[in-house]
């Protein structure tokens, strides 16, 4: 069943899908990659954002992307709060945040799931917009607009965050805090404040990512569970805290998944991506674009 067109198609769709994966993972790349917070509730926050977008779209007819932008400040505050709670419970007390941190965020994720169910019910939800359900003809190929939107947003997010982290004072401080907290303290900056800010940004980004999630496919309250593996896979494969690395790793994952899906049989697709992750972890534990040399 192999043909060149199919392969080309798989690659194009895979790149677009990869960009979508990058968009939903890039917040985690900050919170887990740079700040070392084992944020397994990241996908739950993401789904929550999707429901926020759904709410605005359904009741006020707001465009999903705009809705995503609108809830961003709210999520920023939410992130500040969540980090404060995490800091007070774990980092302040010092040792062994690992397991308990994971358990803590699992608890948070479950609570979010239930709150969504209580508010919106268990049925799946989706949004309407002009670009949902349409496609773009390119020769013989047809590319769904949804994925083009995901592509544009993901690339924009990556560029913005990369610039932010390298060009602004706060951004550089965030990267510094990831590498050497003591040095930063000596410089007179408060690492906790900076980390909190960074976590806020990581959560704020989820507003947009949540909009993409519900644009690309319908959501339901327990959808977060499928995304735990996928988002961590992307971030770890990328190497912790590299924004452009996240994009590249996500694209690799997307392309690999789509090629397997299209040409070899869909049922093995998840195994392939996670086998790749295991391979990367075994050979290059610091990830493909890791910050540690």
């Amino acid at each position, binding site marked *: 069943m192999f043909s060149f067109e199919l392969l080309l*198609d798989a690659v194009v769709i895979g790149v677009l899908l990869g960009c979508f994966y990058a968009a939903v993972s890039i917040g985690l790349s900050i919170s887990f990659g740079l700040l070392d917070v084992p944020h397994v509730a990241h996908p739950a926050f993401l789904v929550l954002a999707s429901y926020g977008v759904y709410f605005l779209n359904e009741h006020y007819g707001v465009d999903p992307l705009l809705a995503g932008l609108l809830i961003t400040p709210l999520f920023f505050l939410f992130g500040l709060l969540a980090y404060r709670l995490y800091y007070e419970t774990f980092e302040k007390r010092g040792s062994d945040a690992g397991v308990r941190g994971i358990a803590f965020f699992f608890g948070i994720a479950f609570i979010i799931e239930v709150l969504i169910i209580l508010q919106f019910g268990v049925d799946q*939800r989706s949004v309407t917009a002009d670009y949902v*359900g*349409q496609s773009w003809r390119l020769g013989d190929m047809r590319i769904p607009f949804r994925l083009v939107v995901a592509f544009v947003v993901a690339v924009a997010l990556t560029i913005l965050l990369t610039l932010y982290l390298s060009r602004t004072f706060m951004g550089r401080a965030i990267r510094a805090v990831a590498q050497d907290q003591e040095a930063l303290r000596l410089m007179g900056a408060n690492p906790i404040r900076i980390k909190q800010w960074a976590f806020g940004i990581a959560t704020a980004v989820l507003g947009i990512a949540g909009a993409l999630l519900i644009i*690309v496919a319908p959501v339901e309250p327990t959808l977060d569970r499928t995304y735990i593996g996928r988002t961590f896979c992307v971030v770890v494969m990328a190497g912790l805290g590299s924004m452009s690395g996240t994009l590249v790793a996500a694209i690799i994952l997307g392309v690999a998944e789509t090629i397997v899906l*299209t040409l070899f*049989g869909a*049922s093995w697709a998840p195994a392939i991506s996670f086998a790749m992750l295991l391979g990367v972890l075994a050979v290059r534990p610091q990830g493909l674009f890791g910050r540690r040399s």
Partner: protein
Amino acid sequence: MKRRTLLGGTFAVAMFGLASTALAQQPIKIGMSMAQTGGLAGGGKASLLGIEVWRDDVNARGGLLGRKVELVVYDDKSSASETPAIYSKLLDVDKVDILFAPYATVPTAPLMPLVKQRGMLLMGNFSFQVNSKVGHDMWFNNAPWGPADSWASSFLDLGQKAGGKSIALLAADQEFAQNLAKTAREVATKLGMQVVFDQAYPPSTVEFSGILRALKAAKPDIVYVASYPPDSAGILRAVNEIGIGDNVKLFGGGMVGLQFGTVMENLGSLLNGVVNYNTWLPEPNMYNEGTKAFFETYTKRAVEAKVDPLGYYLAPYGYASGQMIEQAIKAVGSLDQKALAKYLRENTHKTIVGPITFAADGEWKESGVVQAQFRGIKDKNIEQFRTPGRQVILFPAKLKSGDLITPFEAARK
């Protein structure tokens, strides 16, 4: 030591609490588990509401055998691992009089041997071929599946009549869809069709564009899809975006989800042209005694309960389960399980979804599954599905309300 007493203590509390209330009123208790959380929760909640409407109706009529009817319902979290303990609780602690099965196959499968061993009647709830290996002679499925292959053959028949010679199978890698795909494969071989594409996709698949490109490249005449709610939407979107090819005459078959109100509302015009299985539709031939009244009540209560506002797929069959039990108890005059089973097996039962007769294996003697084509659907409007003509019944002949429009691309317009 401490461990054991703690354990024993909790059981004692659980038993006590429920036993004492039971003695006071002595209603007829119908026990079941139903998914309130997890992947099956959407269906489970709608189905339960159907049964609850029946309970209220029968109690308004004075109950059964002069006793009130009470439901004892627990959440099985859509999982197979919860139901054995729940049904043991229902049998041994709550001492329920009648058992209903949970919604869907997975939670039901582990119960079958237990129920058979206890000699209890079990009213099934939309599971698929769950009794074929166990062979419990007191099992009755409320779902209109009928013989295992009737489902696929009705769809493929339509395809063959429309001139289809080759078929593509796309199925979710989960139990129900895989069972459907298996029968479709067998029927296709029997009909002499060529299977040009046969794939299972994992439940976590987000994006279907890639799979559909591959499917399109195989150039099938008929596309048989067996999918679950989240994927059904994804597949239809991708079909709309990628296209499926002009040679496809018939598309659909076994897509779960296209019966649920919110899913249908979300998909809107993307549904047009799809021929899919269904259980109940608001077409003229589908109304029986009590059907209209049922949906009036259901529609009101669905809003408060935040469940499927249409509820065509499962809820009337939940109600029908109740009706069948009601008729059996009235006819037999007791709660004797064997006598009830005998009555259910040997008679035809009048229900709001039409007359039901059971075959020896506890499935419907004749399939009541309809194949219907979506027509003239607009976006974001749930009320349109309540009017006839939106889902035109093509099969079976006695319920038919229109003819198939082919090819698929033409029917989509």
